[in-house]
């Protein structure tokens, strides 16, 4: 069942060496804002043509998993997610780095990523066919409610300013509707500008909303970018281990969420990490410390986004439907190598699939030394770099990163404009994370909503189609419970305190 006999093939010197190189390359690419895991895997495809199929898959898997983790570096050190799946890592990672715990945050991110990656890989190894049926059970209505579940995080991100948070989230949702409508193909909100036809790309928006405000504040003062605790140098591995595993339920829950969301085609690491973050926050006893540098937030997001790597490969292998964009590239490379995805893949070509999955496990484990090593030097470099070099280096990285996504100068302008808007709104209590949340989840929510509406209208009851399917009802119940539980527990606590005082 586990294909242990293929483990030896996976750890052959060539596979091991290429997996190591893949993880290093992926981690570095993922750390650069604007270069995504998709781009990292795509660059690699031509190089894999001459390789054995299994070696090619292992290298791509290693680059993919490394790139997803690498996004955490810039999220923690520069408040700029290297990849969209690291958005939620900025919430607690950057505050930790600001107070001098950047090295600890990186070590926690590494441990959580490895754990999440292993959970996803073992799911791929053991229960792929069963999990693939989950992907088929998710229709447009379920996607819509999943997006709504992600949007409930706005409540958490806008502490004390819920109305402003909702306004910012709605602004993000509105930005997501710019361009050609996905269902009707109508041109919307471009105001005569052809450059907006493609809509607002996520990466330039992310770079603008997160990085430009940091640059604006950074250049305005002579103070150092990050604080340093003189007594806390090195990897701080013991502290990281304690922080990561002191709440084992958080790691397990986030990894499972990541695996399941990864299975859903089109959902991806960003939604997985946002949903996991929301759940970690809701179930934590220290809710108020989230967003201010709580390690549990990093654990939740990083374990979830790396779990999507294995999860996303489940429908790719079993159904031939890629779970995430990098999976689509891996699927293409598989077909070039003569592998035919489908339910019988595990029986027809077990030597390729099981060796690849074990290779992915090995690559995930290699991420631990690689990630810690690169992370330590990235942290030291950021600390050591004079401001006169740090600021311009980040500036041109943002410019190149925004441009590289679609080779578009317009994206650079969008990045800059959104950056300034994000700084102003954030300064007056409108969290930029709410805007990003709306922007990312808007497209999924709209597509799910409109498709459900069309299907429901054809069936004669659109409302029932939206709320009446079992999985939808489950997600709706979960959304209601998530909102109700904190309110009820707060009310019970207040009642208890009142009774205690009156006694």
């Amino acid at each position, binding site marked *: 069942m586990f294909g242990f006999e293929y483990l030896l093939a996976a750890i052959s010197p060539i596979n091991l060496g290429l997996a190591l190189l893949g993880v290093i390359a992926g981690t570095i*690419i993922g750390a650069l804002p604007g*270069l995504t895991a998709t*781009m990292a895997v795509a*660059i690699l495809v031509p190089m894999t043509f001459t390789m054995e199929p299994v070696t090619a898959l292992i290298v791509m898997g290693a680059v993919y998993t490394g790139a997803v983790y690498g996004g955490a570096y810039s999220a923690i050190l520069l408040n700029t997610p290297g990849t969209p799946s690291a958005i939620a890592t900025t919430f607690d990672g950057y505050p930790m780095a600001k107070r001098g715990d950047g090295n600890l945050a990186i070590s926690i991110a590494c441990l959580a990523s490895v754990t999440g990656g292993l959970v996803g890989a073992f799911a791929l190894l053991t229960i792929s066919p069963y999990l693939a049926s989950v992907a088929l059970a998710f229709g447009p209505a379920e996607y819509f409610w999943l997006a709504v579940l992600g949007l409930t995080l706005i409540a958490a991100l806008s502490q004390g300013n819920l*109305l402003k948070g*909702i*306004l910012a989230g*709605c*602004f993000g*949702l*509105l930005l997501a*509707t710019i361009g050609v*409508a996905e*269902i*009707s193909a*109508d041109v*919307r*909100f471009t*105001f005569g500008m052809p450059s907006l036809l493609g809509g607002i790309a996520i990466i330039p928006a992310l770079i603008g909303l997160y990085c*430009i405000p940091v*640059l*604006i*504040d*950074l*250049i*305005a*003062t*002579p*103070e150092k970018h990050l604080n340093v605790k003189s007594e806390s140098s090195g990897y701080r591995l013991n502290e990281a281990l304690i922080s990561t595993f002191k709440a084992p339920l958080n790691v397990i829950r986030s990894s499972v969420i990541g695996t399941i969301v990864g299975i859903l085609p089109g959902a991806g690491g960003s939604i997985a990490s946002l949903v996991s973050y929301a759940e970690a926050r809701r179930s934590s006893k220290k809710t108020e410390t989230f967003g201010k540098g709580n390690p549990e937030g990093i654990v939740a997001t990083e374990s979830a986004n790396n779990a999507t790597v294995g999860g996303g490969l489940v429908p790719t292998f079993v159904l031939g439907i890629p779970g995430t964009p990098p999976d689509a590239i891996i699927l293409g490379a598989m077909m070039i190598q003569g592998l035919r995805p489908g339910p019988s893949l595990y029986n027809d070509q077990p030597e390729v699939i099981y060796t690849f999955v074990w290779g992915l496990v090995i690559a995930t484990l290699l991420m631990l030394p690689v990630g810690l090593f690169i992370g330590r030097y990235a942290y030291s470099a950021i600390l050591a770099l*004079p*401001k*006169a*070099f*740090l*600021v*311009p*280096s980040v*500036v*041109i*990285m943002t*410019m*190149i990163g925004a*441009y*590289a996504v679609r*080779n578009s*100068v317009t994206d*650079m*302008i969008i990045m*800059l404009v959104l950056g*300034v808007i994000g700084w102003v*709104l954030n*300064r*007056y*209590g*409108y969290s930029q994370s709410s805007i990003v949340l709306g922007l990312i989840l808007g497209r999924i*929510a*709209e597509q799910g*909503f*409109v498709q459900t*509406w069309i299907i429901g209208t054809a069936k004669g009851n659109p409302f029932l189609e939206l709320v009446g399917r079992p999985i939808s009802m489950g997600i709706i119940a979960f959304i209601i419970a998530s909102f109700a539980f904190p309110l009820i527990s707060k009310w019970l606590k207040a009642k208890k305190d009142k009774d205690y005082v009156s006694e």
Partner: protein
Amino acid sequence: MLVNKLKVKDTAGILCTLSLLIIACIFYYDTTTMVDSDSYVFPRAIIMGILLVGVVRLGIDFSSKQTEKRAKISANYLRSIMLIVTMAIGISLIPSLGFLPAIMITYITTMYLAMYEKWTNLRRWSYPLISVVVVTIIFLLFERVFIVQFPDGTLFY
């Protein structure tokens, strides 16, 4: 200390809310030209949400006598404004000068803006030199390794 706590009214917050309401109205106007209901049903729902929440927010802001604690930042934002202007100019120069010269100019200008240390003789010549090397390396990394197609400037053709 960078931040001093002061008590001020949330006028800027009100202006932000008003700006969002105006944006929502402009977007709503654009939906009136759409024929297919699939195109406008979702944006209109969001616009209604913005209008509703925005009006409630304004109502609270205007009716409440409470003042909001806001952090007054004593930083020098002239450099920040110069940074944004530099980036805007750098982006606008790309079509005519090409990508490498435009980001080179942006990098060196930003370096001067971000310079808080004293300009020594060594720094005066070494910093610009290092800047040129850094920008060239980053540019070549993206162009040659990550195969990003950068535009050439029309000025040189």
